[in-house]
């Protein structure tokens, strides 16, 4: 019996749960402005999530998946990307989407039930939210393949949840990405739960990072509540990709502090104590502590940025609520590049029906 292959999975963290620096910081983390920018994006995301949940509770938004507690993963990964890179999200990456340039209004429109919310004015090549869990990974492969075939100096980041790692789609896509050494970073936002199913029930694998071993490329773990760790790992992975090093996998360990979505009641399946213990490790307080101790962050700055984020969100909410519903014909306007003749009749019927219904109103 000889050993023919060996693998290991490493874990990294720079700030521990108390905000103390526990490893030598990467260069970008010396930059106060950058760290404050990270903080601001996380705060914006949290304010957005809070507001979105309220909107849903008051009947002004559809089912919504808050990312409460996971802001560091989402913001960190996107902050490491270049504008020309392409982001392929799951459905709980609003933080990343904001950093990428998707507007809060757009996301409210989307979760409010309006397709225009996926017509991002900013990152035109980014994919919209992927509701069928795991199905987005293959898209990321296709985009990365296009980039590679065209010899462009860009890369793709694909986000997925811990539950998604059980889908064959994810493995298949990772395997192809490995076989073809595509410029593609997979980031597992491991928030410990897939609705009511805990991470431990999802797989016998000790880490999710080791999923990459099956696909023939490296996987690593980071503390997903430490935004410096997330951003640094993504930085390095993207650089590897750009240098032709092939795909990389990052498992960012965080925790879903909220319900799965507004349609969920997590109290049915997890203990309040578990949740409160994880509040001790949440990412905003952690970075704030570090900012206070190392970058002169004070109460005034804190209050100013909170006010600023709230204002931005309120403006977005106002814009969202003021957006009139699309014309019903929009149902057909984007089905094909041009409406095929055989559908003209239905199109007319729809318009007629809409006209009648408007008359009745």
């Amino acid at each position, binding site marked *: 019996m000889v050993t023919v292959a060996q693998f290991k999975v490493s874990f990294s963290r720079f700030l521990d749960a108390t905000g103390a620096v526990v490893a030598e910081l990467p260069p970008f983390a010396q930059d106060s402005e950058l760290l404050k920018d990270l903080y601001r994006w996380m705060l914006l995301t949290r304010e957005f999530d809070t507001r979105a949940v309220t909107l849903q509770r008051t009947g002004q938004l*559809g089912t919504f998946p808050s990312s409460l507690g996971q802001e560091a993963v989402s913001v960190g990964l996107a902050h490491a990307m270049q504008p020309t890179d392409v982001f392929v999200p799951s459905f709980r990456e609003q933080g990343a989407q904001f950093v990428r340039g998707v507007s809060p209004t757009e996301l409210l429109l989307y*979760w*409010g039930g309006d397709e225009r919310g996926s017509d991002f004015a900013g990152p035109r090549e980014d994919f919209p939210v992927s509701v069928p869990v*795991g199905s987005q990974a293959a898209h990321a492969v296709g985009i990365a393949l296009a980039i590679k075939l065209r010899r462009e100096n860009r890369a793709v980041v694909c986000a997925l949840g811990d539950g998604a790692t059980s*889908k064959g789609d994810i493995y298949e896509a990772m395997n192809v990405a490995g076989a073809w050494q595509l410029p593609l970073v997979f980031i597992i936002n491991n928030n410990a739960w897939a609705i009511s*199913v805990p991470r431990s*029930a999802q797989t016998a694998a000790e880490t999710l990072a080791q999923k990459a071993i099956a696909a023939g490329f490296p996987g690593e773990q980071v503390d997903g509540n430490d935004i410096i760790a997330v951003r640094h790992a993504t930085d390095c992975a993207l650089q590897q990709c750009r240098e032709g090093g092939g795909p990389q996998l990052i498992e960012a360990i965080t925790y879903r502090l909220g319900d799965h979505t507004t349609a969920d009641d997590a109290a049915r399946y997890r203990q309040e104590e578990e949740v409160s213990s994880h509040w001790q490790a949440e990412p905003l307080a952690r970075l704030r502590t570090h900012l206070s101790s190392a970058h002169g962050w004070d109460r005034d700055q804190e209050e100013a940025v909170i006010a600023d984020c709230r204002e931005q969100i309120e403006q977005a909410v106002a814009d969202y609520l003021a957006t009139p519903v699309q014309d019903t014909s929009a*149902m057909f306007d984007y*089905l094909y590049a041009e409406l095929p003749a055989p559908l003209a009749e*239905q199109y007319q019927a729809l318009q007629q029906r809409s006209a009648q219904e408007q008359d009745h109103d």
Partner: protein
Amino acid sequence: MTEISLLEAVNLALGQAMEEDAQVLVLGEDVGIDGGVFRATDGLLARFGEQRVLDTPLAETTIAGMSVGLAAQGMRPVAEIQFMGFIYSCVDQMINHASRLRNRTRGRLSCPMVLRAPFGGGIGAPEHHSESMEALFAHMPGLRVVIPSSPARAYGLLLAAIRDPDPVVFLEPKRIYRAIKEEVADDGKALALDCCYRLREGTDVSLISWGAMVMETLAAAETLEANGVSCEVIDVATLNPLDAETLLASVAKTGRAVIIQEAPRHGGFGAQIAALLAERGLLGLRAPVRQVAGYDTIMPLPRLEKSYMPNTESIIAAVSEVLEFD
């Protein structure tokens, strides 16, 4: 006997089936402690334990495929797919294996499994959560496709599906999961499969529907009755195999048919019923067959959802049209 909803009837039937047959087990995502995202399996874990109520990893292909393996071993898996929008990963297993295990082994192995999934629109759900793709499964030989439209039929048909020795796709119209309540005896009595249900007798026109559209159809029939139009309403209930005789007899009597489905029209299951009438009921038709159906486009997100769905008005309009012929 209290009145229960369709959802509660599903839960009741599952409990009854598990009680009467130790081989029945329930599996799927979040069916355990959470009781299913709609609560269809609520309480089953507490009642039957972890050996019979299995929370699976997030893996629809394997949920369907392992059900084939379980069934081949003589168990009776009842698998839940959380929403029909995520059932497509099961298509390969259903068409290539579940539907034909008995046939391809000349009866040596068989596949008594049920694949349950909520389907359809009308509840303002997120993207990919509101489609109606029953026609895909209705075209797969060897499967049964069953859709209840009332608490009582949910109970009786689900029991029948679980007891049936062959694979059944059981689609639940989630829009009416809680919309109607009626008394349902938990008497373990199954309803017949391969059978359409006549919900209302009438003489002027046959309204043929299934799933959530049955409620709209009944409402339309009510209104039409008030206007002197006598509607016969049939709930197709079992899309495959299809009880053609009941449909043909009804249309032979009324001479007119309106078929109502929520799914896109093109290549939908409504077309199968219209085809049946064109082939075997033509001589009795006094007017063209009319379909009221979803548009041949992507199910819109909630803000436009209502404009997509067929409703009482569109059914009444279609009935008026077919009544113009004489």
